[in-house]
């Protein structure tokens, strides 16, 4: 049961995340008055890239080759560990919220090293900016984890989600609201969306993620695009599981609960994606050196969440 759930959520993330990206682009296009390329376009892009020949730029080595694999690998492991479809995943004891954060960071590190390995100025710039954002995001994630785990007495994702399922009203507490706001900002920063990074830009002075992947081509680029989409959907899924765990199959649920929870997962993540891309339409990207202020703000929210949890406990 738990095994099936874990496999289902990995498949859902792997197959669904390019669709999520397509949906978000479509929403954005419609709001901007364009027709848009359709929800399936990211999958078509991936297929096209997979058919191209693999190119290794001269002067790059094993780090450059291994980075896309590791990025996709960490995204898959996180997709298996995080309770999206079921809380009874057999991997639940393997990693908690800290480990999930660290695994996602490992993926970013792999990509940054791949970018540095090219030796181009763009690669170095993207890596440097990515690491700056990563370093500043880390405290917010861990402190809001702290806030969420106080109520449950554990940092295990399964326990946090189960506790929220059992007591849905606890989500409305100030702790959860503050932590949710902090984690939402962090999710935007981690996935490189506006206002931290613009995923559709190719202006060298504004980009973070795109600068790192400039030298990749063919199947390598396909892997990176796919992994980035998976990271986005896993993080949105995690956000929805932590604060709106409706429909997630618990330990005692039957096999029939699984398709239902997959459907609710798709709906929840799709809704979050639509909201995010609609928000992006009305917002401009921040200057790079204003981003730390945004992240400091989210850190403050997380700290307030811990404070609130102490005084409410």
């Amino acid at each position, binding site marked *: 049961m738990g095994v099936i759930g874990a496999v289902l959520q990995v498949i859902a993330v792997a197959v669904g995340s390019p669709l999520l990206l397509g949906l978000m682009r479509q929403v954005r296009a419609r709001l901007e008055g364009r027709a848009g390329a359709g929800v399936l376009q990211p999958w078509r892009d991936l297929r096209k890239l997979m058919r191209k020949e693999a190119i290794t*730029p001269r002067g790059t080595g094993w780090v450059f080759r291994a980075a896309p694999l590791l990025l996709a*690998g960490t995204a898959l492991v996180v997709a298996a560990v995080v309770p999206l479809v079921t809380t009874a995943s057999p991997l639940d004891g393997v990693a908690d919220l800290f480990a999930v954060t660290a695994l996602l960071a490992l993926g970013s*590190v792999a990509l940054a090293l791949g970018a540095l390995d090219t030796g*181009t100025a763009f690669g170095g710039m993207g890596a440097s*900016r990515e690491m700056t954002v990563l370093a500043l995001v880390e405290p917010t994630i861990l402190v809001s984890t702290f806030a969420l785990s106080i109520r449950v007495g554990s940092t295990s994702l399964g326990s946090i989600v189960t506790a929220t399922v059992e007591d849905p009203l606890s989500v409305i507490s100030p702790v959860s609201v503050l932590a949710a706001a902090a984690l939402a900002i962090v999710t935007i920063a981690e996935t490189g969306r506006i206002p931290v990074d613009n995923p559709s830009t190719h202006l060298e002075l504004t980009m973070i993620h795109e600068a790192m992947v400039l030298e990749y081509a063919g*199947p390598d680029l396909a892997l990176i695009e796919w992994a980035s989409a998976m990271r986005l959907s896993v993080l949105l899924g995690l956000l929805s599981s932590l604060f709106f765990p409706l429909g997630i199959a618990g330990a005692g649920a039957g096999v029939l609960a699984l398709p239902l929870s997959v459907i609710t997962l798709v709906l929840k993540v799709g809704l979050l994606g639509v909201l995010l891309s609609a928000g992006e339409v009305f917002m401009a990207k921040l200057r790079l050196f204003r981003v730390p202020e945004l992240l400091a703000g989210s850190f403050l929210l997380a700290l307030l969440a811990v404070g609130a949890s102490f005084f409410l406990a």
Partner: protein
Amino acid sequence: MNLVGALYVAALSGCAIAAVTALLAPPRARLHLAGWCTAGAGGLAAASGVGAVVAGGAGQSWSAWLPELLPLAGVRLTVDPLGGVFIAVTGVVAVCAAIYGIGYCDHGLDGRVFQSVLPLFVTAMLVVPAAASVSTFLLAWELMAVSSLLLVLAEHRRRAAVGRAGLWYAVMTHLGLVTILTGLVVFAAGAGGESFDQLRAAALSPASKTVVFLATFAGFASKAGIVPLHVWLPRAHPEAPSHVSALMSAAMVNMGAYGVVRVGLDLLHGGPAWWWLLVLAAGAASALFGILQAVVASDLKRLLGYSTTENLGLVLVGVGAAGFFAASKLPVPAALALAAALLHVVNHAAFKTVLFLSAGSVLHATGTRDLDALGGLRTRLPYTTVVFAVGALCASALPPGNAFVSEWLLLQSLIHALPGSGVAGAVTMPLAVAVIALSAGLAVATFVKAFGVGFLARPRSAEAERAGESPPAMLGAMALAVAGCVALALAPTLVVPALGRAVGVVFPARDVVSGELTLRLAGISGMVSPLLIAAALVIAVVAVLGLVRLTAARRSRRAARLWDCGAGPMSARMEYTATSFAEPLQRVFDDVLAPESDVDVTPVKESAYLVERVHFHARVPDRIERRLYVPLVAAVSAVGRGARGLASGSVHRYLGYGFWALTAMLIVLVVLW
């Protein structure tokens, strides 16, 4: 004498033999004889330390009293599980450093003195955790300081900076000795005896306990490189030969943490909560300051030195949290925090050995430590690159590295203490978590910079282009250290339960962590499985690779020119350097780091409007050093210059000084006594 004792004595004898051999052996055989003897002694020491930790659960520990060895007090030694942890760490680091030294020392470091002082340094570090009386402890401590000073000064003829680093180190380490001496003397005077057993049984007044704690803490903190007493560390570590840096950074600084645990938690039985909040605050400050300096450093070994300050800061956060929880009557998180601190000591020793040894290999091959002049070592030093990559992964606290496990344990102990630790805990614990998280994030940036800029991309200087791989002895030692790191990373469950026994010396014995495959916390809920995470990662990567092989076009990889947005061929000068990599972070933390930059414009002689040369300097000085030590040194120098007038050369005046000094002292004694 039981097995632990026999191994320990054999290890000390091995060091002595190594020292004598180095003095007597002919130059050609000296390196090999001394190196292998020291390595053997280190192995024995490690075995005895492990034995002490394992046997400590059964209540056995080895102790000895040798009254003839020293006049008045004799030598008292006890190897208990707590000391055993530090002896084992020192032993393993000594094995790696000694074998490495055989390959590394063949260019000018094969002198008699240097080769025989190295085993003495190891001896001192083996005796400090085993000392069981104040006099033995202080003697071993001083031997450790003096021998390490001689080792730091080994290359003083080649670079002027070595002499300055040695001066800083000598002054700081001896000021530290003075405060430890003061503290322990007050303690021994109050206890009426100087053996640790008597100190443990002593009933001191709270005021004198506080004096003892604060004095010894200052000294131990300076040895551990804790802010603001860290200034010697980023100077001495880069200038010492690399295997000495590894010994100092992976083994010697641990003695500072050992001292705090031994004196504060064991001999003084803990104390008021504010002591430990002070320790925690000092640890948190050093963690942040150390990693911030590391992230902007462009000297590879200086970067590693600052990272030591950071990691020892994290250890002290654990020790401080343990003391604080014990004072707040929370035994379970207290034991967990101390176990996390000890595990971090072990893990830090492992990855710092790896990093310093591979940095030494880079230095050996290129002659430079400047990251801005390195790069492209991936093809020229393939083994060193892999070794450094493992070390960097471990140091940046990411899974599947070993520091991830200890930081995870530390965070768990901080989180689970919250409901019970009162308002002080509610304020400090979230901040401590935030500090650990920020230092972890900055450590990631630091080591991505060190590895990415130093080893990847293309060489930025002719030295880096000509580099060649190191001799087999150095590679073998690095492989050994890497094996240790990997074992600690994948199987922490083998080590952590044993560390629980070391914690049992201080806190009532209890299991801290259980489980074979999964690290399961005892008493509170929380588990993680580093081995399964690593396995899952491997499976996922293999699956992705298989998927790509299945679906991608079956055409062979083609090599092509770097695209670089269509620009022309890149020169190495266009690459990102360490300095430019750190620039965004430097700008974010501008107020803390206070970087300096100045522009010298030299105009052409005939016209002020035509510029001949523009010279740009940018550096990030250590701000604490600038604000605290430079004025202090200036003041001391001013006092010295002023006092010069007192020494006029007239014997009559000197006799007069003596007379007045004696009279003044007698008056003071009459008034005060």
